[in-house]
């Protein structure tokens, strides 16, 4: 059979388009009702995956919640670390995590967004840019232990920062930088070209256009990516373990050059020791609750900031 449509010549010799007509669409009620059923069923199939994820999360939170009851109190939040479970408090651990955050946020935002601006707005597109872009995307998927080793070599050893807050903060910054660069690039790319044109056509310089038009439009997108990746940094354990963050620290860090310990590290060490001291499991659970709360507060603040920017525009 010939399924091709074709041009045929009419009697005047001009070509005319003839649509193929050797098939017919018929309404098959059975088939249609079958397809509607399948379509309705797909909704339940897909919702199952959500239910599964939620179920796991609820079980996890429930067990942690139960374990932490009785342990999560004011003394625990304000006290010092101790090897005796009843006396242990995590004030210095919270402070360590807060310091880390205070380093990671400015370092990654400044470096990450600047890199993204350079790559998207200034770098001429070519082979070099493609290679750099591919490498940044690859870096985003490098295991965090590798970044720990890099931090150990560069910050701890070469720059002699040891296992200080600064060394830890910079290592975590390296870890999340690629993600922030990639997500900021995407946000900048999504700014419509006609807005850029409008600004340039009025005699604005490139930098003015970036500052007044591109960044304001891109900032909600940039922040969304940054919130997620900075939260990841705060919950990250492996790179800090590689840096040799101490298990037990009795003083609260004062400056960024002091030794410290952070919430995920403390959870990790307490969990390791549950065989000898079963109460450590409860301490770990209580610390997890604190870590989750910290992340929750951070994310909410960032979302509020983002919404503020969105409204302004």
């Amino acid at each position: 059979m010939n399924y091709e449509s074709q041009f045929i010549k009419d009697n005047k010799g001009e070509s005319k388009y003839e649509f193929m007509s050797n098939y017919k669409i018929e309404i098959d009620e059975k088939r249609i009702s079958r397809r509607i059923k399948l379509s309705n069923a797909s909704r339940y199939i897909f919702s199952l995956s959500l239910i599964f994820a939620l179920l796991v999360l609820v079980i996890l939170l429930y067990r942690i919640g139960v374990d932490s009851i009785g342990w999560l109190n004011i003394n625990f939040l304000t006290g010092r670390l101790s090897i005796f479970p009843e006396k242990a408090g995590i004030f210095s651990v919270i402070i360590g995590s807060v310091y880390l955050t205070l380093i990671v946020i400015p370092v990654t935002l400044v470096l990450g967004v600047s890199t993204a601006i350079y790559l998207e707005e200034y770098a001429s597109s070519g082979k070099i840019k493609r290679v750099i872009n591919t490498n940044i995307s690859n870096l985003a998927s490098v295991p965090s232990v590798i970044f720990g080793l890099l931090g150990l070599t560069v910050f701890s050893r070469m720059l002699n920062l040891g296992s200080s807050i600064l060394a830890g903060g910079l290592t975590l910054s390296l870890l999340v930088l690629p993600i922030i660069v990639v997500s900021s690039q995407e946000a900048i790319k999504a700014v419509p070209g006609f807005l850029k044109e409008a600004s340039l056509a009025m005699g604005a310089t490139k930098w003015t256009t970036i500052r007044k038009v591109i960044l304001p439009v891109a900032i909600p997108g940039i922040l969304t990516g940054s919130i997620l990746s900075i939260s990841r940094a705060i919950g990250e354990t492996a790179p800090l373990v590689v840096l040799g963050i101490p298990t037990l620290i009795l003083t609260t860090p004062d400056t960024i050059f002091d030794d410290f310990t952070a919430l995920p590290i403390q959870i990790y060490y307490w969990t390791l020791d549950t065989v000898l001291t079963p109460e450590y499991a409860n301490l770990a659970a209580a610390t997890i609750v604190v870590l989750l709360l910290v992340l929750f507060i951070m994310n909410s603040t960032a979302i509020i900031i983002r919404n503020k920017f969105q409204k302004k525009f």
Partner: protein
Amino acid sequence: MSESVKNLKEYKNNLAYDVKNLSLWYGKDQALKDISFEIEKYQVTAIIGPSGCGKSTFIKSLNRMIENIPIVRTEGEILYKNKDIFDKSVKVEELRTKVGMVFQKPNPFPKSIYENVVYGPKIHGIKDKALLMEIAESSLKGAALWDEVKDRLDDNAYGLSGGQQQRLCIARAMAVQPEIILMDEPTSALDPIATYKIEELIDQLKKNYTIVIVTHSMQQAARISDKTAFLLMGELIEFDKTEKVFSNPRDKRTEDYVTGRFG
């Protein structure tokens, strides 16, 4: 100095642009071929031609917006105030301050109506709030939009209709005090009533501005322009007074195009 030289000098001073042998390439494809013509001040010059003839390319070279495409290469000169705009000493920011542009699709910023209009004056250093408000009012009046928006200057510009957005873009361009306004098919995305309003506005604007307009619609060119240039495949086929181009064109190809035989 003889009389004819003096006349010539006066004539040259009356020019907004003097385009000399302009050729332009996108990579290896030549988009403009050896174009030369003069654009007079305080007139509306229309550029017509079929799709892909290079009319948008041409108008975008007048303020060097074409250079945003990295593979573009030009030859020849565009004299503006007796200076080649492609000369290295010409700062593109200065040129674009004096030569405003209105685009095919209305492109207001996602900001308030007021912020849109004062964007240009602000980036050029005007900070005085009262002065900015005056600028906004006079620009919006100039673009025949004031009466429609005076009660909602702080509303987002995206709440305006397409035609209002385009007039806002014209107001925004006017606020920078340009001498020339380039319009790249400014009404192609608008309905007939909005188009009519923009055309009426263009007629008023030519008292104070030189206007170069690219248009798809020959009726529009006939209605609003003083002179018309007809481009075809990157070549300037005809450039003359609009009545002449439409009633008694010199070239057969122009006649075919304006009578609707192709395009």
